[in-house]
């Protein structure tokens, strides 16, 4: 177990290195530079100074090594080309907003998903089950940008319950629409997993034993079946969590939320490479961490699984 954990932790380094290299190669293979302004180009002297300032004239291998060095030793991703702050500040300023929104959405999705899945499994093959599962498939197949626009049109424009955009923290009512829009997809997939996992468990012998000794159905479902059924659900839930806390481009840009998700697209289009590198590595690190935690959780929740 301990050697497994250490070996597993060590894979962090090559994983991040591959991501860094991929992004670096992509950046340098893209034609044009960040200061291509189209019709009205900068004077050549200005361009030369900008290129010198940001080390664009160094040989490519030197840029690769120097940048990697500054990330590893000082955790410094460099200045944003376009925004007047450093890439670290972009993350520090906007990631917390995405984390708050994502966690809110996750809590909604986790609770709603498990309740829906459990109800569905217990009411297996009744109209309630079919209705819930139809809802889940709709939830999985509707893109977030469609969900959020429907929510804005109904809740904000027609019913005037909440504003049509903005951000004021977790306790502000403006969190309702984006949190619901983000939660719908994960709710649906958690519900589907919880249902099928619970159905598998309910067929097992120990459940029959529990019935045989005369336990009430509620006790069987909640105390005996649910904990075991949760194990595979944890995996999907963790993947959703990683996805949610790293921000959603669509929800954040449509609802005007100052989160990190908006930068996924804009940094590429502006060629703001330091921010692009910081955002990508952050995302990859979160995904890596999630996978790691899921593996460890799995072994902890289910003693039959041996990590090796």
């Amino acid at each position, binding site marked *: 177990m301990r050697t497994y954990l250490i070996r597993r932790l060590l894979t962090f380094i090559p994983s991040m290195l591959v991501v860094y290299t991929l992004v670096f190669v992509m950046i340098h293979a893209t034609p044009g530079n960040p200061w291509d302004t189209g019709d009205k180009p900068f004077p050549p002297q200005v361009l030369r100074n900008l290129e010198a300032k940001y080390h664009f004239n160094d040989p490519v291998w030197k840029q690769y090594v120097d940048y990697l060095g500054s990330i590893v030793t000082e955790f410094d991703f460099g200045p944003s080309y376009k925004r007047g702050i450093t890439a670290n500040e972009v993350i520090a300023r906007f990631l917390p907003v995405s984390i708050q929104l994502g966690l809110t959405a996750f809590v909604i999705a986790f609770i709603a998903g498990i309740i829906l899945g459990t109800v569905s499994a217990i009411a297996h093959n009744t109209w309630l089950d079919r209705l819930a599962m139809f809802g889940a498939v709709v939830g999985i*197949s509707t893109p977030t940008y469609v969900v959020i626009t429907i929510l804005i049109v109904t809740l904000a424009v027609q019913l005037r319950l909440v504003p049509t955009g903005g951000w004021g923290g977790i306790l502000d009512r403006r969190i309702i629409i984006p949190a619901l829009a983000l939660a719908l997809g994960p709710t649906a997939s958690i519900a589907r997993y919880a249902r099928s996992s619970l159905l598998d468990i309910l067929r097992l012998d120990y459940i029959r034993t529990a019935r045989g000794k005369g336990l009430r159905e509620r006790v069987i479902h909640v105390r005996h079946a649910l904990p075991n059924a949760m194990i595979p659900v944890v995996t999907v839930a963790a993947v959703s969590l990683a996805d949610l806390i790293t921000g959603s481009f669509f929800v954040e840009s449509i609802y005007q939320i100052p989160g990190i998700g908006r930068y996924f697209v804009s940094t590429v289009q502006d060629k703001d490479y330091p921010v692009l590198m910081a955002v990508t590595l952050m995302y990859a690190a979160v995904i890596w961490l999630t996978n790691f935690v899921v593996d460890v959780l799995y072994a902890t929740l289910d003693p039959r699984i041996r990590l090796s």
Partner: protein
Amino acid sequence: MTARDPHPVPTAGSRHGAARPSDLALLHASPPRTYLREVGDRLVRNRTAMVGLAFILALVILGISTPWVAPFDYAKGSLLTANRPPNAVNWLGTDALGRDTLSRLLWGGRVSLTVAIGAQVIVVLIGVTLGLISGFVGGWTDYLIMRTVDALYSLPSLLVAVVVMSFLRGVLAQANEPSVAGLSRLNIATGGLLGVFIVLFLTHWLTVCRLVRAQVITVKEREFVLGARSLGAGSFRLVRVHILPHVLAPVLVALSFGIPGSIGLEASLSFLGIGVTPPMPSWGMMISEALPAMRTYPLLLVFPGVLLSVTLLSFTYLGDAVRDALDPLMKR
């Protein structure tokens, strides 16, 4: 899949040498039930899946016949007829530039399906090949392919898509560069679809590759493969005859979830304005074009949004059904 299987796998009865007359009678009473036939039967019995399949088939037929069926041109409009609600001439109304919504929906559906199905064909070809190599050869080859897959997995597909798209746009824009001139012309001729194809391929082959590799690893140690190997079958024959059929089921499942995934990602890209090039319509682009008028003219948003969701819904139901049908132990 209800069609007669051209290569029926011999059933147990016909294989064990001399069959008793009673066996023969049984054999003639009903056609041999092959694995594929049973899967097909289970699939046909699933009503929701069949409704989904009917919807998809209707879309495919409409998509193929769009150039003749669409009542108007997708790009031509008149400001005099802008933002019309549904009427006798424009059945589903017109958009902000006076273009017929129905025609644009039809052309957009054609684009979505072409992209999704085309990308999945390449995904399956390359994903299966790499997965087979990785699982069968093992060793360093396996390590290299799998670490690449892992690294690509840790990148959000939307981010990969945006980065690759901006890279491709930069490269393909250099139309006078001889090395990319052909590709560039192809991209323009297809309305910017080439780039979307490449992005979809790059983000979707990972799953297929992983699934195939996992399947190959479990199958290649089994007795019948060992038996074939000891009878002198070469690597190529082993893979083609004995291993490939076992890979079919997971690939089919991955495919039925990969197609809606591709449609969704293409819609997202076009929504962001980096997918197909205007005026070529796409459902995602139509949704993003409808957003500014969301409050005053929500119908414009509703049509492509609902169509996109229903299409994805149909594929999801079909995918679920395919997965259940392929797994005989699965109880509903």
